């Protein structure tokens, strides 16, 4: 037993990323002594961003991944940009961290303090009333036990704290938030928006709603402690020294630290959540030190599972006991099932003639967004029926091409050299992001025949997109082509890459929220139905995926669950004394 290690806390938060940071902040600020356990290494904000200020020529191989990288990170490399020399260190070595695939699943992970909050896409889109109502309405999955009005105040809270830019649109399918000033659209984006508005009554274009600071103060007048306005470098995924986009490292973890009630322990792999049959509560967690392999047990009255969807679900499945032989809180048998991810990498591109005398200054770190326009409640019966349920939105980009436009041709000489120094023609692209339905047979399981170096079972994925997603994708491609064509742009070209679950890095749903303990894993407060002091607030709890990027929703539910947990904790304290 280590002599000087504190082993008992009020709350334990497993994971230090997007939701772990929020749980830590909320719980500590409300008076609890909190242990945050991170399985990976320390990343100090502003200090441990080794490539933040490097130009392309400063990077090894000018950014290209080496063969050594590709061999070590061979599954991470399925999204090639992840292995760019500027950001490859945020993703795991697949040889050290293997997993199995009954069907291909691209599991992109970062094991370090801050997790994927350091390299997320920063899109912050609220789910709407019709998203929370969707499962009940069309009979897929189970009903959310929460409605928009329940979570709206928590969206407000999170948006104001992290800082989200956006335009007010008053769309039922994409509720407005507490926005900082939007980043402006460039000339061609404005042109496309105008043409979309002319051609369609059901769709519009807006700047992406992202967690970037465009003001020194939040909507509620609070300062963004330790963070400053975006400098338009667009090197976000390397880690931002000025904290201009939201990450746990820049925002929530420092806030938790300022309370004096945070203990952050890195290199700590949680192997089990301990369950006590008498109290019917969790008592703490077992931890393996990733380096020394030392085993420790930490105790707390509240456990927050924020390790990311797959890691949290694996941990719950691993936490077997006489009461829970199939995993902690798994009375329903749904734990590990209903795995979802958004399907994307489909859309269209076009050339835009004109605007040759126009350009932009600064590297805006966000593209534009076309909110969902399919299968909306407010659409009347005059809309043609579609052969799929739910919907999708588009994220888009529009810029002048750079020197790379010269690659796929064969010119040479002085004229080539000097022409490629100039801004090229304008090019626009649309990328659809579509909702995935919850299917019971899309699942993960644990393989105890193959253990990792810490003696823990490997995760196996068995997940695929099905007919609804495939039909939706056909419409996504067709609509992308149609919109660009209607805008009068040239060389409109559809594109489609194979849709592979996991690729969007929005995996979710494997410990879903629901009314009924027989069909779901957590209740409306994110508590395991059967173990009231274990909260699951990462993507595991999602009952449906909607089309929106999910991190904002994870954070809002985490803040809400933390407030609930604190009340529970205080009532326990009152009971005891």
């Amino acid at each position, binding site marked *: 037993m280590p002599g000087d290690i504190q082993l008992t806390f009020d709350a334990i938060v497993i994971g230090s990323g997007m939701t772990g940071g929020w749980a830590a902040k909320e719980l500590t600020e409300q008076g609890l002594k909190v242990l945050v356990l991170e399985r990976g290494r320390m990343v100090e904000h502003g200090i441990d961003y080794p490539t933040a200020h490097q130009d392309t020529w400063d990077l090894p*191989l000018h950014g290209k991944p080496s063969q050594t990288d590709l061999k070590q990170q061979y599954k991470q490399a399925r999204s090639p940009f992840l292995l760019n020399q500027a950001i490859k260190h945020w993703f795991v070595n697949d040889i050290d961290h293997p997993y199995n695939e009954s069907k291909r699943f691209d599991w992109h992970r970062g094991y370090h303090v801050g997790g994927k909050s350091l390299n997320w896409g920063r899109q912050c889109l609220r789910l709407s009333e019709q998203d929370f109502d969707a499962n009940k309405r069309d009979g897929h999955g189970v009903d959310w036990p929460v409605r928009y009005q329940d979570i709206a105040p928590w969206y407000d809270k999170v948006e104001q704290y992290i800082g989200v830019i956006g335009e007010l649109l008053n769309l039922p399918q994409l509720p407005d938030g507490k926005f900082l000033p939007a980043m402006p659209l460039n000339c061609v984006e404005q042109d496309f928006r105008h043409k979309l508005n002319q051609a369609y009554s059901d769709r519009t274009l807006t700047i992406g709603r992202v967690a970037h600071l465009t003001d020194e103060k939040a909507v509620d007048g609070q300062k963004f402690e330790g963070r400053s306005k975006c400098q338009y470098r667009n090197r976000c995924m390397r880690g931002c020294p000025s904290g201009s986009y939201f990450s746990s490292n820049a925002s929530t973890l420092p806030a938790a630290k300022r309370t004096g009630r945070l203990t952050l322990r890195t290199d700590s792999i949680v192997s089990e959540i301990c369950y006590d049959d008498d109290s019917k509560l969790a008592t703490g967690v077992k931890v393996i030190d990733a380096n020394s392999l030392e085993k420790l047990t930490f105790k707390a009255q509240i456990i927050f599972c924020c390790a990311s969807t797959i890691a949290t679900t694996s941990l719950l499945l691993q936490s077997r006991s006489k009461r829970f032989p199939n995993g902690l809180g798994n009375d329903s048998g749904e734990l590990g099932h209903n795995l979802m991810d958004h399907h994307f990498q489909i859309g269209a591109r076009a050339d835009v003639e004109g605007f040759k005398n126009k350009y932009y*200054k600064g590297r805006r770190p966000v593209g534009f967004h076309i909110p969902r326009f399919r299968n909306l409640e407010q659409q009347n019966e005059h809309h043609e029926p579609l052969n799929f349920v739910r919907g999708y939105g588009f994220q888009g980009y529009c810029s002048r091409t750079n020197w790379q436009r010269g690659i796929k041709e064969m010119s040479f000489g002085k004229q080539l050299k000097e022409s490629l120094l100039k801004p090229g023609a304008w090019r626009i692209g649309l990328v659809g992001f579509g909702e995935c339905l919850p299917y019971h047979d899309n699942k993960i399981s644990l393989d105890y025949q193959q253990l990792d170096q810490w003696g823990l079972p490997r995760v196996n994925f068995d997940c695929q997109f099905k007919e609804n997603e495939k039909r939706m994708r056909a419409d996504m491609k067709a609509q992308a082509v149609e919109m660009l064509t209607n805008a009068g742009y040239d060389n409109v070209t559809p594109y489609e890459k194979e849709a592979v679950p996991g690729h969007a890095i929005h995996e979710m749903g494997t410990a879903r929220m629901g009314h009924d303990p027989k069909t779901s894993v957590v209740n409306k407060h994110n508590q395991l139905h059967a173990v009231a002091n274990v909260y699951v607030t990462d993507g595991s709890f999602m009952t449906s995926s909607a089309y929106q990027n999910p991190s904002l929703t994870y954070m809002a539910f985490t803040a809400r669950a933390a407030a609930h947990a604190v009340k529970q904790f205080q009532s326990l304290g009152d009971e005891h004394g």
Partner: protein
Amino acid sequence: MDRREALMFFAKSMGVAVTLPTAIATLTACQVSFGKDVGSNKYSLAILSSKQYQMVSGISDVILPESEIVGAEQLNVAQFIDQIISETMTSTQQKHFIIGAEQFERELNYHCQQKPNCAQFNHYQSLVSLFFSIPKHKQQQIFSQQMLAIEDIAVKDVYDHYLYKFLLTTRELTLLGYYTSEYVGENIMNYDPVPDTYQPCIDVTDVDNAWSS
């Protein structure tokens, strides 16, 4: 395939109108001079031979030549290309590149023998022009063919496939090395690492060259 057959094969595959006696005569008439000593700049080649390095350097000089603005050879882009091929390509990709380089070397020797008195730059200029100054539809065919696995290439096209693998890879990496070089990035293009502002619609004349990547 013996030497005679090989000569006819590559001559035909390149669309070069040449009789066999002429080809044999010119092939033996001169040697290509690779004057630049790679070792002199203290760079140890990672994968290219000295001759291949000289060829890559020569081709890069044709693709992005010196003008009022620095050219690719002056920036020693060939060294960058050697590193990229060595560290980022699979062994199969490297092998295909080298086979293409060896074929280009034969083309160069042949060309040099035809015109023994012309300057070395002109040999590269002529050959790059021979292989790149072709109709657009032919270019597209070649790019499409480059996407295929070697097993899927018709025997008659294999020679061209390797040759263009070398030439197009050299061309692409010349562009990459040049436009992402420190010198061009900081001195020629518009270098603004911390813009601090976003102006969505400025006049292009305000900046002239594109923003540095």
